[in-house]
């Protein structure tokens, strides 16, 4: 079973996404904090990361750069989620694997996950 790590500081979205992605047939770990995410990745070894753009505490952009800078995590595909009006532009700037504007259809998300984990 492929493993997906979900990061979002909104608990309600985090919970909904956990259920939805699990229903899609993935092993899911979710966290609302970006702290020590590298350690978490090294332990959980996700095949794909889903992250929100703006996180309280550590900025999502900073997180992406950390993940992209580490040998252990730089190859993991990242799907960026955001309700930010400029989300799409930011996603392009940070060269993430895919971007999905909130709100989105579950089917869209699942098809992206399947595309980048196969």
């Amino acid at each position, binding site marked *: 079973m492929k493993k997906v790590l979900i990061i979002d500081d*909104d608990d*309600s*979205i985090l*919970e*909904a*996404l956990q*259920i*939805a992605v699990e*229903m899609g047939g993935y092993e899911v770990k979710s966290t609302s904090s970006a702290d020590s995410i590298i350690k978490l990745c090294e332990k959980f070894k996700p095949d794909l990361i889903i992250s929100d753009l*703006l996180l309280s505490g550590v900025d999502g952009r900073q997180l992406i750069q950390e993940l992209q800078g580490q040998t252990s995590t730089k190859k993991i595909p990242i799907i960026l*989620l955001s*309700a*930010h*009006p400029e989300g*799409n*532009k930011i996603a392009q700037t940070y060269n993430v694997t895919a971007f999905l504007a*909130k*709100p*989105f*259809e*579950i*089917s869209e998300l699942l098809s992206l996950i399947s595309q980048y984990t196969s």
Partner: protein
Amino acid sequence: MKKSSSSPQAGIESEFQIYKERFEQAQKAGNVGVFDIDLVTGKQWWSAVEEELFGLLPGTFSGTDRDWRDRVHPADLPRVTKELKERLKNKLEDYESEFRIVLPDGNIRTLRGKGNIYYDAKGKPLRLIGVNYDFTERMQLEESLRFKAEASKVLASSLDYQTTLNSVARLAVPHVADWCVVDLLDSNGALQMVAISHSDPNQVKWARERRRSNPPDMKATSGLTNVLRTGKPEFHPVITNDMIEKAAKSPEELQLLRKIGFSSVIIVPLKAHDKTIGAMTFVMAESKRHYSKLDFQLTEQIASRASLAIENAQLYAEVDEERERLNNIVANVPGVVWEAYGKPDAAKQRIDFINKYVEKMLGYTVDEWLNTPNFWLTIVHPADREKAAAQAVAKFESGEGGVSRFRWLKKNGESIWVETHSYPILDKQGKAIGMRGVTMDVSERMELERRKDEFISMASHELKTPLTSIKVFTQILQRTLKEDSNTLVTKSLDRINVQVGKLTTLVSDLLDVSKIQSGKLELRKANFMLNTLIQDCVDSLQETTDHKIIIKGETSYQIYGDEDRLGQVLINFLTNAIKYSPEAGKITVAVTKETERVIIGVKDNGIGISKEHHNRIFDRFYRIYDNEDKTYPGLGMGLYISSQIIKRHEGQIWLKSTKGKGTTFYFSLPIIS
């Protein structure tokens, strides 16, 4: 000598007689007097005309130089005597002189003399034979012409007409007049003596005093006030005793007038805009001269030049006053009102006018603005300079003007946002030669707009977060319950999903409107195929509606544009078509091609839109209020956003509709061939 046919003696005498007569006739005709002086004995001979020139009765000449000495003006006598002595000393044969004589009636004439001096072998002067002629008229004419030329020059030299009139009056004395006075009517119709001139300052003082104590009678039927009243000049070549007696109001005055000794008077009116505004008075008195018709014409010419000068000065003063008034009006406009000449980015561009408020707004003085070329651009914030210059040039060159925004640096270093509305100044050929406009401080507005944009951006983010979880949870439920096929629950969940979708669109639309307003709607343009876009939009909406959506026509065209934004337009057309045709089941998307563009039409058979709304339906927040039916839900954002997106793609947007008979919305896009 000619021989006579009769006795030789008689022949000679008659011939002599003929010569003498001819000689005298010639003298008379030329008014030339002949004199013959024996320089050894001092004896003189004068011809009849010479006697007449010097005011002697015929045959009364004394035969010595006594008569000559009597007549020559005392001021000229030493000079003329000295000149002759010099000639004799230097043994010159030519004789030439010019001097004034005073006739018994006080009249002064100017004479010129020409002759030959004869010397003996040892160089002793023997005889002076010559002629005299009256040069007075010629000299006066020369003086008059010189006066006319100088007066004209003075009148054209300055707009301060009080000073110039004074100069003209001074120039007139003594050659053209003994007295010259200029009077003007002031704005209250009161007479003001603005200039008076006479060779003797004491006389001037006296005349001024007299004018104060004895102002002219405004009802007099002749003289200054009559000229002012009628606007017609008065010319009195000879002032008679009678006239003086008539004019005097008292025996004292009569004595006074006699003492002045008026001999000739001209009064000419001064006119501006066909209205008499004053008069110039030229008087001959102690010189005993009389004005000629030529003099009268001359004074009339001077008066008309003076009138013109006054008129010009008054017009200039009026313009000046008007300018001052406008200056005061615009001084307190809370914005910079300006006018500049030259291309806006040219080094030589200069401000021609700027209102006082600019000092308050930016701290630089009006003089700094007027005297520093291209000043406006030098104080534009460096980050905005290039763009501001380019926009100004575009406004200038298009010949249409427009609005632009940039930051200006105040003298204290702070920067403010300004908005400038400017229009080109065109020459007669329609070519721009400058710009004029108004520049306002919009810092506060910019700050409010920035905060509003930030708020809308934040609000849309905050609204979308709960929407996202609602949507995900709804879809989880839909997926979970699909197997149970509990129709009421699944149907309700479908409804929730559709409504969440609508709510999402509203939030997005609000954000888009805000972006369009602030010019921040960004397009990501690329080449794409139109058929895929149409198919995707139709498919996504077909899932949510019972209406049958049909695609008609060839659709495989390549378009250059923002696929997502153009999809937004098509979705907007389709959702409108669904929304406003509740009874009809069919919606058609028809694609047609014209020469260089493709037209996409979305046709419904719904309620239609009456003509009156067609022009305004693409306006921001425009809503159709229908008296008969009802108002339709919505915020009036969708079509506005669509029209803005299409405009940004160099396309057109329009509609065809008849009330009750359905609507077709169209947009066109350029095709890439």
